């Protein structure tokens, strides 16, 4: 039986999530034993037309050509999976709002420059997406878990608890208790609290957990810091979420 065909495509982003796939090393060979990677611009010239069993999409489709490519892959693929925060949340590129792009094009490129990008949006703004592998970058363990589920014919599943659970397991003191801002409580788990363990804050790159209590977190954050900092935290990764627009923004 021929192996299921997989395509990997990358839009506007840092390509770090694809580097994480390469960083799987021996496990990448295992992946190739089960799947035929028929299109992956970063590492191979080989390129086959669809249909595909699945397409992994990294990056935010910011240019018209990227949006077209995304739609093509959707039509040709049984499954579309988002790879990393740029695909799942618009990521760091989403920090610049559509309205502000004009201003920054002028400042950075000067007048007369013809921009390629329109607006940074997550891939689900354009097509139906079957599953999002979150993270900035995606973690290697997460990738392995995802591919194992896929190989076993299971539907990949989200963890419906927050980063806080994993942060406790790692033995980190709670940032909020120490009066440091943190988005851990509303953020989906899966990263093993790697940033907090490294001394940094959690900016929510895994996206919101199911039923996040954003209002309660806002109350806590308002006691710790000012609205500007709260805005900076939420807009690092989450500005393109409905919850940010509806719940957080009106309170800033």
């Amino acid at each position: 039986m021929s192996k299921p065909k997989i395509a990997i495509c990358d839009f506007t982003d840092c390509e770090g999530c694809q580097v994480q796939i390469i960083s799987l090393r021996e496990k990448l060979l295992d992946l190739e034993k089960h799947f035929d990677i028929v299109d992956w611009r970063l590492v191979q010239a080989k390129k086959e037309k669809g249909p595909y069993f699945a397409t992994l999409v990294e990056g935010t489709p910011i240019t018209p050509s990227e949006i077209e490519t995304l739609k093509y892959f959707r039509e040709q693929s049984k499954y579309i999976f988002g790879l990393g925060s740029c695909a799942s949340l618009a990521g760091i590129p989403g920090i610049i709002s559509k309205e502000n792009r004009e201003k920054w094009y002028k400042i950075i490129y000067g007048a007369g420059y013809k921009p390629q990008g329109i607006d940074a949006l997550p891939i689900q703004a354009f097509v139906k997406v079957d599953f999002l592998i979150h993270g900035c970058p995606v973690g290697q363990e997460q990738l392995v878990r995802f591919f194992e589920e896929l190989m076993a014919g299971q539907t990949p599943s989200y963890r419906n608890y927050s980063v806080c659970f994993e942060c406790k397991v790692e033995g980190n003191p709670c940032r909020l208790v120490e009066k440091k801002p943190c988005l851990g409580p509303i953020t989906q788990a899966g990263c093993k609290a790697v940033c907090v363990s490294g001394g940094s804050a959690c900016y929510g790159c895994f996206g919101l957990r199911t039923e996040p209590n954003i209002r309660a977190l806002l109350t806590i954050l308002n006691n710790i810091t000012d609205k500007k900092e709260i805005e900076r935290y939420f807009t690092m990764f989450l500005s393109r979420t409905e919850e940010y627009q509806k719940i957080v923004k009106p309170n800033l």
Partner: protein
Amino acid sequence: MNPEFITKIEGHGALHIDWKKNNVQLNVLEGERLFEGILVGRTAEESHWITPRICGVCPVAHHLASAKAAEDAFGIIPAQSTGLLRDLMLAGQLIQSHVLHLFFLALPDYLGIDKGTELSKKNPALFKTALSLKEISDEIVFCVGGRNIHPMTTTIGGFLKVPAKKSLEKLLGKVKIAEKAAKKTMELFSSLAYPELDVDLEFVAQKGDFILSTGDVKRSLIKDYKQDLQEEVRQYSSAKFAKYKKREVLAGALARIALYDEYGREYKDKLNFRNPFYNNLAQAIEIYHLTKTSQDIIDRLLKTELDLTIKKPNLEASLRGIGALEAPRGGLYHELHLDSNGIITYANILTPTVQNLSSIEKSARALLEQTEKFAQKKRERLLEMLVRAYDPCITCAVH
């Protein structure tokens, strides 16, 4: 299918070839993320957290350049052990990036395979060598930075977390073993048959407070980077093109070996400084050199008390700073201006690939002139190999 981009390079570019005029344009088709705009309004502390996301292949370089820029702005000189840990993380970064490029992007051209993983069948021992170097370089960055990509342990003035001495000891043992793999890699890349090409290449590399060059102007101050490395916007590219003192220059491994004269001496007769394809060998030489440098740094770290003090910002300082370092592909420059609350009011980022783009087009023209007898298909293939040899990082260049 993905559109027709040059494969096996970082980012999205396509060659526009004028066969009659022997002219080549490198059309950079990457979406603009506008990082210099993203940074404005953010805190200085957030900048080294945000800028690694410019590039997943060389995130540590951006991470450290941003931290250095902020420290320069705040008048901070970090502790010696902070400097050593950062040097170690950067050495790991260079190995990571070079290994990825050499084995997964460049080598397939020379071995007649399509992708790096095919090496596992064609030459299992060599593939093992590649993976062992990938692993050790990831481990170095993980050990110091907390993650192999997009580290998070750095703060302005020091580290939020430092590795335990036990981890450093363990790492040292592993790097020692990796030195052999690095030597094998260097021998392999010195044995490859690189395409013939003769270009009057000029090089740039940073050293201390200076930019060194092999051109007419031998050196200039890094603090004048913006006037000396002038960027221009071209309509066919979302990346700018930079020249040094109006000259097309090559930055990166080959330039560093040409200008430093500190390592790679034993291979100097094998390198050809008029042929950019030799940048591949230069990167392999650097991997070997860096496995040795990493051991020296870890040795020194093990002998010193790790200073955990995080130096505090001085808000009376100039609040304008430049963070410059040699990234895998050459000189990287981050400039930050801050207000008295430490909020960024201006950011400028100039990457190595922006410098290399001008040199790529120059070498591509030379290649077309020197291969007129060849069939078009072969010339196209050589042009792609040439672009790859420069190891352009297009997401960096656009940022």
